């Protein structure tokens, strides 16, 4: 099966927001799967113990974009689960939230989120993300300095067998300016 397009898993408990993010992603030429909860997301990703995991290669999720505040399990908790999984930790995770609270933003970035997007998410955000992920999929680039955001050094050992330079890449903290 040809993997032309990015496959994005979008997680949001809001019907309205799911519809919007799905459209944003489709307009950006991404293949989209939307789920309504972190629990469902974990099932889909094969991290749920109850269901037997689908062959992961077929799913091949290139990006997970999740709402922060969801009942039962937050986007932050989902992020932690993903980053704590050997199988999934390489998948970039983006957090979306209507709340622009600095400590919350920091916590997500520190836990390994690529970005923290303030809702409502715009097409320009999605296009930017897509381009970023596509570049990441390409053969390793010579390191480029990113101007914004610092990456907090994580005490994680470089145990992953990843060939990408993920752990060296500075995290970009991109937040939308608050609407007036």
């Amino acid at each position, binding site marked *: 099966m040809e993997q032309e397009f990015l496959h994005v898993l979008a997680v949001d408990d*809001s*019907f*309205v*927001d799911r*519809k*919007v993010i799905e459209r944003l992603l489709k*307009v950006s030429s991404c293949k989209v799967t939307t789920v309504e909860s972190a629990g469902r997301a974990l099932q889909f990703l094969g991290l749920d113990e109850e269901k037997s995991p689908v062959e992961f290669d077929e799913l091949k999720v290139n990006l997970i974009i999740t709402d922060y505040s969801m009942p039962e399990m937050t986007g932050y908790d989902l992020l932690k689960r993903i980053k704590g999984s050997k199988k999934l930790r390489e998948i970039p995770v983006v957090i979306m939230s*209507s709340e622009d609270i600095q400590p919350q933003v920091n916590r997500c970035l520190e836990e390994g989120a690529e970005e923290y997007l303030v*809702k409502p998410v*715009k097409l320009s955000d999605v296009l930017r993300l897509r381009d970023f992920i596509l570049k990441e999929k390409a053969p390793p680039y010579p390191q480029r300095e990113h101007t914004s955001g610092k990456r907090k050094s994580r005490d994680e050992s470089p145990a992953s067998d990843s060939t990408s330079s993920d752990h060296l890449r500075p995290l970009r903290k991109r937040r939308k300016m608050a609407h007036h």
Partner: protein
Amino acid sequence: MEFVGQLQRQFVQFSHSLFDEGFLDDQFQQLQKLQDESNPDFVLEVVSLFFEDSEKLLNNLSIALQQQIVDFKQVDSYVHQFKGSSSSIGAQRVKNVCVHLRSFCEEQNLERCVMCFQQVKHEYYVVKNKLETLFRLERQIVEAGGTVPFIL
């Protein structure tokens, strides 16, 4: 066709007023940009979802505020959801009133919450009405053989 021209002008004027008077903000235009021939009803679909969702939330809020002992955390949770969805479709005034309501929840000021909730409902029904009018105008233009003008 004179009639189509009239309808189109009405549509443009009405659309402008919605933005000028702050009922809708830029986010609504963002949604309009996502609509095309392959998805000609996108905005209508999203807004319809919003209406459906909102009825439930408003009902839940009403019940929650009428409890003997009001669970402000629960009320706040509903308002947060409502604020989110109204923001997602660009319903600016609704969103703004939700912000106020959240602060009253935080204060656990029931009287203010109840009053503010009335305002939230009011703003919601006003924008609902306006959006329905907007969609009706669009339909009329198309049925009369015209194309819906872009509002930028």
